């Protein structure tokens, strides 16, 4: 098993390197010159001065050298400075990451907590009215993008009923209740699609498990339905669920950009969007690499968990 983990880790590092290089390439090859951010355009008459600044910032070096320099700094936690706010990219990230992290954690917890009972119920009563309603609802939720759900919820819960604030964010330090009030609507709008995906996964998984012999023998022993469903059936299905949650992190990260924009939340996604509009390349690069890194790390972790728990995978690989 150790060689397998080692192989996974090597691949992880290789992927991260490639991802950061691709981002660097994207940000550097495409139109826009970093010199315009350093010296105002009308101050660029003095060719010699411009050339001197270029040399100073290393803008004349070949791209591979610049990438090496950026990477060397990045592994030490230095992602450069934002050319717009002149704060360091890493300080902006540490300031905003908690918002996005909280949003994602609340979303995933909420969806999983709802999807497990729904999925189990639908599987247990396969083909019944209950199953039809749950499966139909899942299919509908799957088709509602975050911005539509979010806007609708703002309209209903903030504008019509006035229960929750429409936009904005209260930090955790401002009190738990105020914090929760601002996270509910964004999390709900992200959760719809997640609930749908997880419910479908749990349903089809439990349906398969219910055919197993050990479930039959548990029935024969006279164990209660609920005990069988949640103890015997759910455990193997939880593996699949973990994988799907991991795979879905990418979609969720994309979703946070939209939802943070809609709810004006000071998270990473909103910052990325602002940086993109302001052509703040260092910021775009830092956040994009970070998001891709989180995604790749989560997926590797899921693979490893999966392998530790299920010995069959180890043999297959």
């Amino acid at each position, binding site marked *: 098993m150790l060689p397998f983990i080692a192989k996974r880790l090597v691949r992880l590092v*290789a992927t991260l390197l490639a991802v950061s290089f691709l981002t660097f390439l994207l940000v550097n090859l495409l139109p826009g010159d970093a010199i315009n951010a350093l010296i105002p355009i009308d101050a660029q008459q003095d060719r010699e001065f411009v050339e001197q600044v270029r040399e100073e910032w290393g803008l004349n070096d070949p791209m591979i050298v610049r990438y090496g320099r950026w990477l060397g700094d990045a592994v030490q936690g230095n992602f450069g400075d934002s050319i717009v706010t002149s704060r360091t990219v890493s300080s902006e990230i540490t300031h905003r990451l908690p918002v996005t992290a909280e949003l994602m954690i609340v979303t995933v917890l909420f969806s999983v907590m709802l999807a497990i009972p729904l999925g189990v119920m639908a599987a247990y009563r396969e083909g019944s009215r209950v199953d039809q309603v749950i499966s139909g609802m899942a299919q509908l939720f799957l088709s509602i993008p975050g911005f539509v759900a979010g806007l609708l919820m703002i309209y209903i819960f903030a504008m019509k009923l006035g229960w929750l604030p429409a936009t904005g964010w209260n930090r955790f330090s401002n009190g738990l209740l105020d914090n929760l009030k601002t996270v509910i609507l964004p999390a709900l709008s992200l959760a719809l699609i997640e609930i749908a995906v997880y419910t479908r996964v749990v349903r089809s998984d439990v349906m398969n498990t219910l055919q197993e012999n050990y479930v039959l023998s548990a029935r024969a022993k006279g164990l209660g339905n609920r005990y069988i469903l949640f103890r015997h059936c759910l455990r193997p299905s939880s593996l699949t669920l973990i994988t799907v949650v991991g795979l879905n992190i990418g*979609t969720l990260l994309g979703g946070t*950009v*939209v939802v943070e924009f809609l709810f004006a939340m000071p998270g990473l996604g909103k910052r990325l969007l602002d940086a993109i509009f302001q052509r703040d390349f260092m910021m775009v690069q830092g956040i994009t690499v970070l*998001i891709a890194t989180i995604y790749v790390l989560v997926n590797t972790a899921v693979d490893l968990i999966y392998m530790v728990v299920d010995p069959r995978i180890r043999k297959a690989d």
Partner: protein
Amino acid sequence: MAAGTGSRMSFFTRICAGWLIVIVLGAIFADLIPGLKDPNYQGFLFGDGATNERPSWNHLMGTDNNSRDILARIVYGARVSLVVSMTAVVMGSVFGGFFGALVGFVRGKTDATIMAAVDVILAFPGLVLLLTVVTLLGRRDLMVIAAVVGFLSIPPYTRVARATALAVSRREFVMAARAIGTRKRTILFREIIPNCLPTLMAFALVNAAVIILLEGALAFLGLSVEPPTASWGNMVNAARVDLTINVWPAIWPSLALVFTVYSLNNVGDHLRRSKAVRSAAL
């Protein structure tokens, strides 16, 4: 569609398929629909109608906050969704399908190289990569958006095609073809690729739904086609400001988007099920 012969479509699935046909025809022949307004005509500038009008006989869905006819904008907005998703499906299944089938069949170094590249691109969350590329490109007409989305659709199709090709390569008829000394290229085009197609087609329908959602999100963020060109996402975004005055300009494009995506998923599920029936019968 030939793949749909496995089982009968339910009444509801027929409605979904019907809606998809209506949307496609409407988008293609938008210019020929009698009575359909000009989607960019701002009536209030000429003393003809007001902004945020309620639905009426003149404007069946009302007008938006620039007093443009919402129905017309939805019909024309469908063009954006369709062009982008069609490009993605075509580019994805042609290039991704070919590469995937090729490397799944020949394996070895080609396989390792192409899949490494695929993994790197898939390591970016889709929307984030799309967002970055589209903005950095700086130009945002329909063709650019469609090309970027299409290019980024190649990796997922490659993965699906490869997995299918791996399975197909182990089937008896491929073994038989090898045994009688058929050339590799012939096996690839005669045996492997045709047998990957049903899976790819089912994936394409679901993927088209995903792409429509992606384009919607991009447009909602103001990063898809430039205004005044209508797209469902940018209509929702524009209506966001005047939600308190009139909610309908936000509701209509949302409904169009949700129902189209729902229909694609529903019909896609149906095809997958009927395909499962077929492959089980083999």
